[in-house]
């Protein structure tokens, strides 16, 4: 018999129980008798609030870290996940995945983290520009992180999460992730990867709970600068975008597409003019 672990939320670099005390039992989908696989701390709006505070606090240092360092840290995430390849896949299998599907899922996630790790020190070159204005000026556009990004992740707990979280972090944003409701264990285990990968505390915060309950708070939050609603069901998505109007969040549904423009959804372009003449 396995130890029945309680999975915790990952906020500010620490694994915490919900302030609400809410815990959800996750049962095995493979056994008929409803065997409890694990118990999962279930986030409340106050946990979400705390996660935003942590993300905001961590953001300036993360944004001002060199892109080289951010890239190394994202690569470290891939390395750490690779090191936990077997246990991550096992966890998926225990949640009902086939062995083959679980292996594909873990591989895809690792691949995505590696892919984005390599973008950290290239986004500025690819998305930015030196602009040939008609005057004696140096005119340079560079992408800058918007700040704190709320992410509603889609179902696949490792690959989809990587697809939406990595591009957000890559550009220097910090994130509050609402993990997929369907697969809490893999997502929260992945937070343990983040915690051991040199990702500074607060840079990536992972919550699990009722997305329908939590996401509107995220979309309403005035200190969240952007949201990726990729994982929100259609009915909820419209509501979240409407709520985002309050502080004019950037809204995207990137679905983790692998292109630099995905990271660009969470970057604001800054254009600086300077005269060049004596």
């Amino acid at each position, binding site marked *: 018999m396995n130890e029945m672990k309680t999975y915790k939320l990952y906020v500010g670099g620490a694994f915490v129980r919900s302030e609400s005390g809410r815990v959800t039992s996750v049962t095995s989908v493979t056994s008929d008798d409803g065997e409890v696989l694990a118990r999962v701390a279930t986030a409340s709006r106050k946990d979400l609030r705390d996660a935003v505070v942590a993300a905001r606090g961590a953001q300036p240092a993360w944004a001002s870290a060199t892109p080289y360092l951010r890239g190394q840290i994202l690569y470290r995430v891939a390395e750490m996940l690779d090191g936990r390849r077997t246990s991550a896949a096992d966890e998926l299998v225990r949640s009902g995945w086939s062995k083959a599907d679980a292996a594909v899922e873990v591989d895809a996630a690792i691949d995505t983290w590696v892919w984005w790790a390599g973008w950290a020190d290239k986004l500025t070159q690819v998305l930015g520009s030196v602009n040939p204005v008609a005057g004696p000026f140096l005119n340079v556009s560079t992408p800058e992180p918007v700040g704190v990004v709320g992410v509603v992740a889609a179902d696949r707990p490792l690959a989809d999460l990587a697809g939406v979280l990595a591009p957000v972090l890559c550009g220097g944003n910090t994130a509050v992730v609402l993990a997929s409701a369907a697969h809490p264990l893999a997502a929260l285990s992945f937070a343990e990867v983040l915690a051991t990968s040199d990702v500074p505390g607060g840079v990536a915060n992972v919550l699990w709970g009722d997305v329908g309950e939590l996401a509107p708070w995220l979309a309403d939050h005035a200190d969240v600068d952007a949201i990726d609603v990729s994982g929100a069901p259609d009915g909820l998505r419209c509501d979240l*975008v409407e709520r985002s109007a309050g502080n004019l969040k950037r809204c995207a549904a990137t679905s983790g597409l692998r*292109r630099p423009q995905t990271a660009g959804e969470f970057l604001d372009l800054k254009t600086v003019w300077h005269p060049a003449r004596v």
Partner: protein
Amino acid sequence: MNDRSAEPEPLAAAQTFAGYAPAPESTSIVTLADRYDLWIGGEWRPPSEGRWFPTVNPASGEPIAEIAEGSAPDIDAAVAAARAAFDGPWAATSPSQRSRILFRIARLLQERAREFAVLESLDGGKPIRESRDVDVPLAAAHFFYHAGWADKLDWAFGGGVHARPVGVVGQIIPWNFPLLMAAWKLAPALAAGNTVVLKPAETTSLTALLLVEVLREAGLPAGVVNIVTGGGDAGAALAAHPGVDKIAFTGSTEVGRSIRRATAATGARLTLELGGKSAHVIYDDAPLDQAVEGAVQGIWFNQGHVCCAGSRLLVQESIADAFTERLVARMQRLRVGDPLDKNTDIGAINSGAQLARITELCEIAESEGARRVQTTAALPDRGWFFPPTIFTGVDTSHRIAVEEVFGPVLAVMTFRTPQEAIAKANSTPYGLAAGVWTSDGARILWTAERLRAGVVWANTYNQFDPASPFGGMRASGFGREGGRQGLDAYVNLEAAS
């Protein structure tokens, strides 16, 4: 030894010269119709509800033409026309043909520049010097720049993607740069192969309607650009229209929010260029005389009807008094008056409503304890005018330091250290633009990096160029206009097979 401070007897000729005799631009080049209809599907159509409203010359308060008041059924018709053109003739127009049409539009605008400039000043109140030297040339430049992109779009987005047009685009533009904002919106949309329903601002429709002649002459197929004039209802109908694939809006933050909500329901893509309260930071090592000019450009360009106006001047305390003194002296030289006079620096306030708002915000500023300094020259005795104004003794909590005035009113504050300058500059929900003046290169870079704004003008202000992306952060909106990055808003990227 002679006395270097002797005061010579003034010459009469000097006084006569310095008065700058009136130099009015002739309006004979402009032919106004009595009444304008809506431009839909390549023809002029009367508004469905049969209503027109007057457009007024703000320098005289007199109506100069009647403008069709479009409403929801007209928006329906315009969107349908745009869709038909998108699926039909515009889809059949090759990228290189699109490019040529845009080049032609640019040329025709240049050739008719004077006509557009006069009409812009007549309808909107801005000084002819600016409509002639800034608005119209830049509008032509935007078409010229984007013409070249029309058949090169895939190169704009790196590898692995094809850029496809979004579809039917709704564009809602403001009254402060009527033709230029139309150009900012239309040029990239057309270059990328979209069709457009354009809703000009209620008080300044005429140059957009004149642009129809240029678009036709350039060979733009019917229905590719449709213009529905009218008020906020027409704009709201466009923003919420389910047949529109993308909305681009420039205007107030308040309206921007309502458009965000409207497009949440339709799923249309959205770019917003909204308000600002831009900080203009003057360090004590700045080139002072030029910094004074920068401050002037920052706040008094276009009567301060500029979303990116440098309306919060942050001056380092050690030079604050001297700088303000110079700025006040310079302000006194601004010539306020007839927008069509070539020597006018400050024209008319665009509307009575805007004048009332500016007046009210200034009264509030005084009642909160800020000190008002204004030009002393007499204002014209008719039309809507407001003197260039500086408020000193402003605190960060005063409304004049927080709210967008959208008029010729500058709030002056001070700071002691670079860190304080940044903290004060960023203390606003907006993030459109910012300025910084210093002669220290490292300080420029340090400051520019920290100013939270989409455009940072370092040792300059209010510069615009079609190759330079423009747009805001935070409550100033999202999306960029101009430059390679400005194309993003008007394409859908598909994976290249």
